[in-house]
């Protein structure tokens, strides 16, 4: 099936070259970082995790979002998703690869990464994260490939594969739960020390993942003559809406707890995110414009989803609302959540984080790698689909 990636219209090759350019820049930037050290980034003693770990956190959600297709299709026999479930599985593969690349980019001593395997430490949440992330990657490659191969031959997939398909469902939940546990089990980091982090992560994941799949379907419809079907898209929108509403609800609960309890530790990070913190006469408010953009995009998208015309009759508005909700959640989780957890630091000082150009280059390079993988995998999936139709 891999041969399907080797044939395509000029636009396909131009797109790959476009992504390749970013990847090349990313590789060059990484070489610089590798030779100099993580001092090439904007991270500091106080904000010791930056863009890499925040992207990782967000992308684990995108990967977990694929389960919103797998679960209805395989558990509830929701046939409408038959054509696009593979898109969810392939998206998960690309997202996990990005996650692993972001973790590698973030390590101070990347050549020692295998120490996590050589010296397994069950008390560390990173140990479990390694297991579930790699497990979920393996499950999606296995299930996606076996089922697509069967589809191509127009036979039923072998029965044993369903064990792995069902297994991938708790794995999808676990990857994001464990990722939440990286944060929510740390004493002294009040913004993260909240039992709602895992449910909130899952809710935003189940909105961001499917939103990306709708965007992909709309693009595939135009460039690859692949129609996911109106009913499938509509169901996905319903899933996104509920998930995004739940996420908004969870975030508002955090705001309530912070402000009503009036406990400084619970309030400061939220204040920093949305209004800025004043400290020794200086205003720290780097993230404020981002967070309000996220709020506007979030409610704007929910409004568009609720409007039947935009949701059902106008593909441009549908795509726009999906892009909006995706960006809203990316800002919320892919920027704000991680950075604000370090403000203020344990000594009640404030250091702001601003990524460097080199860091952005690596980040874009990894995103481009993810898009490249998605493109190639979707090319295969759509190619097989067309082959059957002929």
């Amino acid at each position, binding site marked *: 099936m891999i041969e399907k990636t080797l044939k395509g219209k000029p636009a396909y090759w131009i797109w790959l070259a476009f992504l390749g350019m970013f990847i090349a820049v990313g590789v060059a930037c990484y070489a610089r970082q590798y030779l100099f050290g993580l*001092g090439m980034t904007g*991270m500091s003693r106080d904000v010791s995790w930056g863009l890499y770990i925040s992207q990782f956190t967000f992308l684990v959600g995108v990967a977990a979002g694929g389960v919103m297709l797998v679960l209805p299709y395989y558990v509830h026999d929701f046939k409408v998703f038959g054509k696009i479930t593979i898109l969810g599985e392939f998206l998960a593969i690309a997202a996990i690869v990005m996650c692993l690349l972001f973790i590698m980019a973030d390590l101070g*001593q990347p050549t020692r990464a295998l120490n996590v395997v050589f010296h397994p*430490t069950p008390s560390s949440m990173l140990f479990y994260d390694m297991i579930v992330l790699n497990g979920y990657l393996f499950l999606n490659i296995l299930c996606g490939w076996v089922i697509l191969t069967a589809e191509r031959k127009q036979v039923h997939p072998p029965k044993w594969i369903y064990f792995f398909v069902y297994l991938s469902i708790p794995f999808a939940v676990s990857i994001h739960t464990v990722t939440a546990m990286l944060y929510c089990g*740390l004493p002294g980091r009040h913004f993260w020390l909240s039992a709602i982090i895992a449910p909130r992560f899952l809710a935003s994941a189940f909105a961001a993942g499917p939103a990306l799949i709708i965007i992909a379907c709309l693009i595939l419809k135009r460039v690859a003559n692949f129609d996911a079907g109106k009913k499938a898209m509509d169901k996905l929108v319903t899933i996104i809406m509920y998930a995004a509403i739940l996420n908004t609800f969870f975030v508002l609960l955090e705001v309530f707890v912070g402000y009503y309890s009036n406990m400084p530790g619970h309030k400061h990070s939220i204040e920093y995110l949305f209004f800025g913190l004043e400290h020794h006469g200086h205003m720290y408010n780097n993230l404020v414009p981002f967070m309000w953009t996220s709020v506007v995009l979030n409610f704007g998208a929910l409004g568009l989803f609720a409007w039947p015309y935009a949701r059902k009759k106008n593909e441009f508005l549908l795509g726009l609302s999906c892009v909006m909700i995706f960006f809203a959640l990316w800002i919320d989780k892919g920027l704000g959540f991680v950075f604000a957890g370090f403000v203020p630091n344990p000594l*009640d000082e404030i250091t702001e984080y601003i990524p460097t150009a080199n860091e952005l280059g690596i980040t874009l390079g990894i995103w481009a790698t993810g898009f490249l993988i998605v493109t190639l995998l979707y090319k295969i999936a759509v190619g097989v689909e067309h082959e059957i139709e002929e």
Partner: protein
Amino acid sequence: MDKQRRNFLKIAGVTALAGIGAPAFVRLSSASALASEQGAAEGHAAEAVHGAPVEAAPQGVRLGMVIDMRKITEQPELLDKAIAACIDAHNIPQFDNRKSEIKWLWKAPFANVFPVESSYHLAKDVKETDFAVLCNHCDNPPCVRACPTKATFRVKANGIVAMDFHRCIGCRFCMAACPYGARSFNWEDPRPYIKKYNKDFPSRMRGVVEKCNFCGERLALGQEPACVEACQGTGAIVFGDLNDAQSEIRQLLDKEFTIQRNAALGTKPSVFYIV
């Protein structure tokens, strides 16, 4: 320093040093150390819980420190001397930007060191004197729990939270986990920034985390921690075994009211402050 005390430091140090180089050794010797800890906690000799007979419990050692801020208020230069001694002993690089800085022992105002305590109408002396800040060598350290490679670990024989710089992968999970901001990361090669090189202690490479080690390497030679030695004769920093009722530090703790940094987190810090 009397002979008995020197011997104790030596014993504590040998195990500390062994711990730095080979956690496996610590694991071998942990059975008795753990048992004695339990005994100390419950106030009676440890009993064999897992069937195997345990030797008559040796004194379980948990190293700790009392910082007497009254003394430092009188002589603020003591803290500067202690910090300088620490920097010289451990090849701590001196960066001129805040972003890259590496700190083992440093100073900060009361309000920053104790953000959960009230600073409202603070006594003038307390407000104006900088406090010593260092790793708390917690009995229940969140950094050790978080580390995915056991590169940071609690030496069971003496309670020091130590680091293996050669195992650390630089994921900085421990830095997020430490509620005291005690850990630093080598964002770049630190060697060009070491002012005075001490060949008796390794310098670090870039990409690893480091922090105060309670001078495990000096204890092994029967010496006191560098900061304690720098304040010798003043009683500003007292170091010793928290589990030994006869130790100087315990007698001081029995006598004086002390506070610990954010003890509500359940980390059980081993550093105490007399304010």
